[in-house]
């Protein structure tokens, strides 16, 4: 089986005036299988967002390439949904209009848009708020709306950059469960960036640990826990072993060669 997403020697340098080019990402190689849920953790500045933006087509790599279904990514496309940390909802549109934004662009007619948005708004539990403006929603509700909006255009891939980073611990855990429930119903390939080691292990079938200076892949930890994930699993010794392994990899990486 060919991988769904394939990072091939992806390098990214930023030119900073008056200084030598800064290497944000050094030769990243990573294959993500179809329908797989991977999480990416690593210290701040190790190039997680950079890698995701390159896959999203929002940033061009300095060299190397990202392949999606064997085609080189050259720009953004609706088959790759992106969910940002800052929600990025359109504040002048209601929840429903936000969810229908991409559907309108894709040329769906009114009834279709309505049917699809109803479906996903219900799936994220915002039916009662379909006609509310984002300013009236809590952070968790905004992020659920953003998830519904990304799902609505039926992307094969979801790229999520610390989507729950701004939320409190309880909301975070609830949204993790909702996201996994949604993912098992509507299977997508997910690349999920996080700072939170617990979150990384709980969600993923593989945790990609990156290291900084230069930003690079440091280690991949396989999470051999079956889905659906449960609270019991979160409290199991197996889980804590995995979490310790990821934690050590993130915070005490062996010195770079």
């Amino acid at each position, binding site marked *: 089986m060919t991988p769904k997403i394939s990072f091939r020697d992806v390098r990214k340098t930023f030119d900073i005036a008056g200084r030598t080019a800064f290497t944000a990402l050094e030769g990243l190689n990573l294959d993500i299988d179809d329908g797989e849920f991977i999480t990416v953790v690593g210290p701040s500045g190790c190039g997680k967002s950079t890698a995701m933006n390159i896959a*999203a*087509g*929002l940033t061009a790599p300095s060299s190397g390439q990202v392949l999606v279904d064997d085609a080189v990514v050259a720009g*953004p*496309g*609706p088959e*790759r*949904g*992106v969910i*940002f940390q*800052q929600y*990025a*909802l*359109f*504040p*002048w*549109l209601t929840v429903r209009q936000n969810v229908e*934004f*991409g559907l309108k*662009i*894709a040329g769906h007619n009114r009834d279709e848009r309505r049917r699809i948005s109803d479906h996903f708004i219900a799936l994220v539990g915002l039916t009662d708020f379909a006609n509310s*403006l*984002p*300013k009236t929603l809590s952070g968790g509700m905004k992020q659920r709306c953003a998830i519904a*909006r990304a799902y609505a*255009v039926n992307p094969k891939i979801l790229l999520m950059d610390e989507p729950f980073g701004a939320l409190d611990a309880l909301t975070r855990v609830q949204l993790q469960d909702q996201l996994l429930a949604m993912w098992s119903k509507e299977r997508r390939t997910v690349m999920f960036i996080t700072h939170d080691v617990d979150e990384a292990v709980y969600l993923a079938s593989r945790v990609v640990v990156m290291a900084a200076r230069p930003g690079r892949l440091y280690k991949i930890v396989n999470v051999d826990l079956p889905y659906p994930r449960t609270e019991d699993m979160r409290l199991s010794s197996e889980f804590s072993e995995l979490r310790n392994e990821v934690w050590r990899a993130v915070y005490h990486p062996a010195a770079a060669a």
Partner: protein
Amino acid sequence: MAVMESENTSDKARGIPLPTGPLAMLGINIVAVVFGISMWALVTSYGVVGLPTPLAVARQAVIQAQSGLLWSDALASLGRVFTGFALGILVAIPVGFLMGWYKIARAIIEPYVQFFRTIPPLAIIPLAIVTMGIDETPKIFVIFLASFLSSVVATYQGVISVDRTMINAARVLGANDFTIFRRVIVPASLPYIMVGVRIGLGSSWSTVVAAELIAAQSGLGFRMQQAQLYYDLATIFVSLISIGILGLIMDRIVMAIDSVLTAWQEKL
């Protein structure tokens, strides 16, 4: 208003409970105005400053209203403002978008905008009269300039302050440049544009009155200038008060439109 609000908050800080509902605020507004007019009446009834009494001014206003002069003056001034202002906004918004969207356009237009912004519009009047004659054109042109300059900068600021992630969010949902412009840039910069419209209307209004003082055959400014020749203080007061009231009404209309158009904004 601003003074009253700040007094209000300092009262709160001292813990004195005061009614602060909209109706109570309106009541306080009215009391303050009545108090001001009473003071005016008091001061003038002793002939302290040689100003007309409120009653004399009211009488003059009624005479002018009945003769129709007040209305034709107000209409003349308003007509100039709206023509110049509408033209200014109509040109400013596309130019502002152009400057915000295309770096080339910004580089070409910005030096002119920044330069002319430092010149008070009124200072253009002599030049405008010499080159455009003494009819309506120079006045409308100056008002056009006043509203254009304030709105163009606001629009341009609005476009360049649109959140990058919002644009990226639209892009990853499949939006092309045109869709991003129409469905993200335009609505997102609307609050900025409305600020520009409000400032533009204010400066148009003050410009028109001043322009009429210098060169006009009608309008509230012209009436004041005439009254000045005859030492007719009551008429000057009528004109001044009309200018104030009309300015206030226009500002409130723009604010009302703004609060409808940008109701989605998270306000502090």
